[in-house]
């Protein structure tokens, strides 16, 4: 039981490049989330999903896209990377919305230069 797995752990992108951050969970959780954490700041919600085929914008969705074609996977796509997207990205999943905790991956440290 791996929990929430994020890949890659580290990545350096050039301005204007694109990439996909992968997130997979093996707990059959319905809810999945993407957050970013900037230095000295809290976790900001980028996108979230309450089930396969359903996604919604969070607090800071601009510059990102997501898809949820399966229960297990929730990839985050960065198009036209910008220095402002330099951050640590965390994926999380939870069974449902209440009375259950969200489990987090180890994070992806992304630098855009």
């Amino acid at each position, binding site marked *: 039981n791996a929990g929430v797995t994020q890949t890659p752990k580290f990545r350096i992108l050039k301005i204007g490049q694109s990439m996909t951050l992968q997130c997979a969970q093996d707990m059959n959780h319905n809810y999945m989330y993407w957050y970013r954490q900037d230095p000295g700041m809290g976790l900001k919600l980028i996108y979230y999903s309450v089930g396969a085929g359903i996604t919604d914008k969070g607090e800071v969705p601009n510059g990102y896209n997501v898809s949820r074609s399966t229960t297990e996977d929730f990839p985050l796509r960065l198009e036209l990377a910008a220095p402002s997207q330099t951050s640590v990205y965390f994926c999380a999943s939870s069974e449902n*919305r209440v009375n259950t905790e969200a489990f987090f991956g180890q994070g992806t440290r992304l630098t855009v230069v």
Partner: protein
Amino acid sequence: DQQVKQNSPSLSVQEGRISILNCDYTNSMFDYFLWYKKYPAEGPTFLISISSIKDKNEDGRFTVFLNKSAKHLSLHIVPSQPGDSAVYFCAASDRATNKLIFGTGTLLAVQP
């Protein structure tokens, strides 16, 4: 617009004493609250939670108090241990949107 606020960026306490971490929220649609602990270079890990129908939940050394009228919750750790040194995040779940919103975190340092 910060819906979940942790106004103390850092807190330092002596080993064995009580640590009190505070969190305020503005959204009345929040009905479930959680505390997470985060060590450097790791993902956050769940600590304790509370439903809005309760005002207290206890788990070992950790107790969370919820004051709905004040839109305030707090995490008490007693006795504090050096291994408790970490960043603590407060989070809230919005029943209207299904969003899970986090605060900015408080860095707790427990001095031996």
